[in-house]
Each structure stands twice: as C-alpha cells, then as structure tokens.
C-alpha cells in the first residue's frame, strides 16, 4: 500500500517531465544558435531568463492543450498534494477563502442538527411524567448532575450493544464483542443468517445491473449497521440516535481492523486468527466505549430477544421485498406482451411464495402460455403459481360470452388502427366494420388475430364490410333498369362475395313517395329482382342471394330522412354470411 502511494507521484513527475521537456529539448535544439548568441551576449542571467520565459510558457501551454487527459492525470495528484500542504500550512486563510461558499451550507446543516436535537429533547420532556422520566429525575439527584445534562446525553446517545466480525464467504464469526458471550443468542447462527440475508439482497438485485448491498437493518429501537469489504464484514447492533456519525465510527473500526489484519482475514479458514485476542480487544473496546455503555450492562434478555426479532424481521422483510419484486417483474413482463396485455392479466401475491394471475382470456390453452412464461423467471424462492384466469366464453357463438372478448379485441385493434376498426361476430365469423381497411390492413389484422388463441377456432376471415355494406343501386323514376355505374358496383360486390366462402347478399328494393303503397312495394321488389338477375347472369349462385320483401316503414323512414341521392329509388345490398340468407 505504502509502496504504491510513494511511486505514484514519482511516475507522475517523470511523465510530466516527458510531456514538457521532450518538446522543450527539441525546441532548444532547433534554436540552439539563437540561445548561444543570447548567452554570450554578456547580459545578466535574470535578463536571459526573462527573454526565454515567454517561449517556455507558450510551449508549456501548447503541450497541455494537446493532451488534456494526460495532463489532468499527471497534474491532479500534484495539485491535490500541494493543496493539502497549503491547507495544513495556511488553515486559517483557506477557511476564510472557503467560508463564503461553504458557510451557508454549514449553517444550514447545523440548524437542521439543532432542530433534530430540540425535537428529541421535546420528546424526552414529554416522558417526564412517565416511569422513565421519574427514573431520570432520581438518577440526576443521586449522581448530582442536572436533569438537562442527562436529557442531552439521552438525546445524543447511541450505544453499541454488540458487534460481530463475520467472514463474508462462510458466514462464520471470526470475532465478537465479549459482552455478548453471556447471552442466549447464538452468535454463529446470527452471523450465518445475516450473511445469508446479505447475500440474498445482493443476489436479488443482481439481475438489475445494480450493486445493491445491505448496509443497515432497522427494527424498533435497534439498528444493525453492516460495514463490509473484501473477505469480512462487521455487523454492529446499535441503539439510540443512529446518525451518519455512528456509521462513520463503525466504518472507522472496520478500517482499523482491515488495515491491521487484512492478511489474516483473507486466510481465515475457520480456526483462530493469528491476532485473535487483539481483534477481539479492538471490538470490545469499541463496544465498551459507546455512549451510555454503563447502562448497557443492564441489558436484559428481553433486549436480546429483540435482536433476534430484528433478524427474523429482516428475513420477513426480505421475503416481502422478494414478493413485491417478483410480482412487479411478472406484471412488467405481462405488460410487455401485446397479446397478453389485451386481457388485463395481473399477477397478485397470494399468501407466501405464491402468485395468482387474474384476468380473462379467451382460451384455456392460453393459460399455459402465461404460466410457462412466468415460470421461466429465476427465483430463489419456490414460487407457486396459481391462476384465476377465466375463460370468458366457451364459444364465440354465445353472444353474451363473446361480447366482452369482442370489446377487448376492438379496443386492442382500435389502438393500432386509430380507433377506426370495429369488430363484430356473426355466425362464426368475425367482421370488421371499419372505414380505412385496405388489403394490407386486413392481412395485418388477420395475422394478429390468428396469433390469439381462442380466436383461431372461430375466426376465418376478416371481412371488410364497409366496402360492401350500405351500397345502394340507384334507379331512375319509374325504371328498373340498372345503369353502367351500378353495374360496376354490382360486379365488385359479386367479386367480393365469390372470394369469401360462405357469404351471400341480401337485397331490399325501395321506391320514391309517388303512387300507392301497393305500387311502391311492387316496383321496389321488381328492382330487387332485376339486381338479382344481373348478379346471377354474371355468375353468382342464386343460393347466395336473398330478396327481402320491401319494408314500407323502412322506405318511409329513408324517404323522410332524405339520405339517399336517388329519392328512395334504389336497391340496398347487405353482404352477410350464408346462414343469414337462409
């Protein structure tokens, strides 16, 4: 260690020398004749130095700018070292210089600390009428000290109850405070359990790329401070006002132990240390010198039980944390899966070591998919997975059962297609009722739906009804002749119906307001039949066509709304599955 610190500045200086002087020497070589002239000119040394100075300063600056990283590396230890020396020599001046910057921070810190003490004192004063308060008054009288002194001492005190030095790999106690030996608590068991907890916490976060370490455990009045590095760690149980200072004191003890015995620790294999007595003495001295130690001689077995409770509590805490951790991981995983997310599946803790998945999914086989994914997680606790994943419908033909699923499906697809897709289930087919579907969209949705278990059993095709539904074939007044524009529409519809097995078309004629109801009904049906004839003539099977008798109420409604451009003289076409035709 010492060797390293001595060598570092030396190698730094030689590196700096190399940076600065190599170039200088070459500059000197290049300017040799000028320098010689200067030297033999008879001018004084001071004057020569003054003349050469600008050249050297410029060279120095040039070199530092060229390689700032190396310069910083080389200069940092030198600057630190000179600063340290400066602070030691001119402490007063340095403090004066820094006070404007640090002063406000220090003031704030002191104010906060005082506030803490005042709060603590207030708490103590409130206990004046308690047994503890009366006891304090009696002690003050007996010892001849003021009660306020005792109060202040209580407010600031921290006592170290016991300390263990533990071998990190094996969890074996290397040394412990002597006070503890009289007690019931088994130091070896405590140390091993603590090591396991520490390893558990460290391992639990290993997958998150974090360097999580257990530094302290708080439980009730006791705090367990853990300070560790290398082959050993120190566990100190404290009581009272544990502050940063307390932790620093533990760190200081650990540092002393490590500095003096690190070699001994690294070679530890279960036997006694070479300096066992010295190590134990250092630990004992640390525990014995804590504030309020005289009172700690009165440590009752109850307190020891409390320490045991602290450890058991810590184990419970670890279990709880691991629960939360794995539950969150499972839910994060579920959320990350697009086909899982649409079913609102959530993992909930259910008792110890078990998780329940809640949610509704379309198919039992899908449960396996969710569970097997969840089981693939690494866990040091044997996780029991149970599921409450309900299958919302046994068959999509059951409209009640399928409605929830359709709703979820719609919402999922709507997110993807800007809210313009609506799904419908009809006689074993899923239909889209959107506005923007083109062949590419349809393919995408078909692929997506095919990947969702439960749907594939019922889903056959996406049928873009928007391109077929609501199409009307218009007619002139008192005419049943189909014009060329209408023929084009009929050809397209015929082609679509042919391309999907199981589809048919419903035709419903309509008329304008002219004439009696009977004549209007007649011409409406004639128009429907004319359209049917055209479709059959162009190759559509008559079985796929259903002429629906004109509904006069419907016609009246349409006539009144004025939505069609043909004044009611049209045949409307609805593409439906064959089952709807019969």
């Amino acid at each position: 260690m010492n060797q390293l610190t001595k060598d570092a500045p030396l190698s730094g200086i030689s590196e700096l020398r190399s940076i600065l002087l190599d170039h200088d020497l070459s500059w000197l070589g290049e300017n040799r004749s000028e320098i010689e002239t200067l030297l033999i000119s008879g001018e004084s040394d001071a004057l020569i130095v003054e003349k050469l100075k600008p050249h050297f300063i410029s060279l120095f600056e040039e070199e530092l700018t060229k390689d700032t990283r190396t310069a910083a590396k080389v200069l940092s230890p030198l600057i630190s070292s000179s600063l340290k020396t400066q602070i030691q020599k001119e402490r007063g001046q340095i403090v004066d210089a820094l006070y404007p910057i640090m002063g406000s921070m220090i003031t704030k810190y002191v104010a906060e600390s005082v506030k803490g003490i005042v709060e603590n004192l207030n708490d103590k004063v409130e206990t004046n009428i308690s047994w503890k308060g009366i006891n304090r008054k009696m002690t003050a009288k007996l010892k001849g000290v003021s009660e306020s002194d005792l109060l202040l001492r209580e407010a600031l005190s921290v006592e170290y109850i016991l300390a263990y030095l533990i071998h990190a790999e094996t969890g074996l106690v290397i040394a412990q405070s002597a006070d503890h030996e009289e007690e019931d608590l088994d130091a070896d068991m405590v140390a091993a359990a603590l090591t396991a907890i520490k390893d558990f916490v460290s391992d639990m976060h290993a997958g998150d790329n974090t360097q999580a370490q257990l530094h302290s455990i708080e439980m009730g009045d006791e705090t367990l401070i853990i300070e560790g590095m290398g082959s050993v760690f120190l566990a100190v149980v404290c009581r009272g006002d544990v502050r940063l200072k307390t932790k620093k004191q533990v760190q200081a003890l650990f540092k002393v132990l490590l500095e003096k015995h690190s070699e001994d620790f690294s070679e530890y294999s279960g036997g006694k240390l070479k300096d066992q007595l010295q190590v134990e003495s250092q630990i004992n001295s640390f525990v014995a010198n804590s504030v309020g130690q005289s009172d700690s001689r009165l440590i009752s077995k109850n307190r020891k039980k409390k320490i045991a409770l602290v450890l058991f509590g810590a184990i419970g805490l670890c279990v709880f944390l691991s629960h939360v951790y794995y539950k969150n991981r499972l839910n994060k995983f579920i959320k990350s899966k697009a086909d899982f997310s649409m079913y609102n599946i959530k993992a909930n803790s259910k008792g110890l070591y078990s998780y329940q998945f809640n949610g509704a999914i379309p198919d039992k086989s899908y449960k396996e998919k969710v569970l097997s994914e969840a089981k693939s997680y690494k866990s040091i606790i044997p996780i029991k997975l149970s599921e409450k994943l309900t299958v919302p419908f046994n068959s999509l033909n059951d409209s009640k059962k399928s409605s929830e699923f359709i709703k979820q499906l719609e919402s999922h697809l709507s997110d993807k297609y800007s809210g313009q897709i609506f799904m419908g289930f009809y006689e074993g087919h899923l239909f889209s009722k959107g506005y923007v579907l083109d062949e590419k969209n349809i393919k995408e949705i078909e692929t997506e739906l095919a990947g969702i278990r439960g749907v594939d059993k019922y889903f056959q095709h996406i049928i873009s009804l928007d391109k077929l539904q609501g199409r009307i074939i218009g007619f002139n007044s008192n005419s049943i002749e189909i014009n060329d524009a209408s023929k084009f529409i009929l050809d397209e519809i015929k082609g679509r119906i042919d391309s999907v097995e199981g589809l048919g078309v419903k035709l419903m004629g309509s008329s304008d307001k002219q004439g009696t109801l009977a004549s209007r009904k007649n011409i409406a049906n004639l128009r429907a039949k004319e359209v049917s004839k055209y479709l059959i003539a162009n190759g559509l099977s008559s079985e796929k066509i259903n002429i629906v008798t004109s509904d006069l109420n419907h016609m009246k409604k349409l006539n009144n709304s004025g939505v069609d451009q043909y004044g009611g003289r049209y045949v409307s076409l609805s593409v439906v599955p064959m089952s709807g035709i019969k």
Partner: protein
Amino acid sequence: MIEFKKKIILLGDYGVGKTSLVRRYVDDSFSDKYHTTIGVKISKKSVRWIDEKSQNFHVQSMIWDIQGRSGYSSIPGKYLTGASVGLVIGDLTVEDPVVPVCEHIDYLKAFSPNAVVFVAFNKLDLFKLPEADLNDYFRRVYNVHKNVSFIVATSAKTGQEVEGLFEKAAKLAVEAEDGYQHQPTVV
C-alpha cells in the same frame, strides 16, 4: 484443544430429503415439513474427537441447508462460496438420481472449487432395487467426478448412516485444511 468452525452446505433437488437429513442429525428427529425462508436454513452442531496423536479436536459445523433446485428457481452462488464440504444429496426413489447429483457437483465446484465433495443417496428405506444397481450409481458418479471424497446411501427416516455422514464431513473439512489427500470411500 484445536477448535474450528466449518461451513457445510447441503445441495440437491427438491424433495430429496436434505432438510430431513439435517433434522435427523441436529435434532435427531424426522419430519417431512419443508422450510421456505430466504432459500436457506442454517443449523449448527459440534463434533469432538481425538486423533491418533491424541489431539483434541472441536469442530462447530455450520450446516447450510439450501433450498432445493426446481425448473424455475436457482440457488444464489454466494450461498455456496467458502464451503469446506458440500454434501450433494440424491434421491434413490427417482428414475436416475445420478444426473442431478452430477449437475449439483458441477454447480458447487463453480462457486466453491476447494470444497470437499460428499454424495449421499437418500431414502434408502424406500429403495427397492438390488444392491448391484446402487453400486452402479456410485460408479457412475465417480466416473464423472473423480474428486468426490465420499459416497454413501442414507435414510433420514431410519437414521441409517446419517450421523456418520455429517461427522465424517466435519473431520474431512479439518483434514482438508492440512492438505490431506482423500481416498475415495464408499459405504
């Protein structure tokens, strides 16, 4: 008196009887109950003996009973580090207990390369196959792991070979300290 503390770990699949072996040794009682805390249960037992040079030995064995492996759980490697002896437990009632035993030895060696390895095939009371098959299991373990120091068949239920297993583990842990060369032993 020469005093030592030694870390002994028990490894093995779920249900092989690790916890029952520890209970049998430490408390001299048998229970099928499982522990599930942070994946490890720690027990302690002292062993004393006098060697041929009349030296008194006292070893405190800290026995780390590590939660069994399953398809989706794993053992933190840190639990295995620093072990003086690794007791790898196999289950005689499963179809082929040798494969998981060998896997556990590999895992142990990865984290605790200097550990003395013991293998115990447990549930001897339930084992119905002839002795020839048992010896075949032993041979197969040795063929894969030449450095296994001790193989034994045990029964946590009857206590057969249990105490001997742990005591031998404690002794070998101390002997390994002096660079003692182990000769494989089969019981």
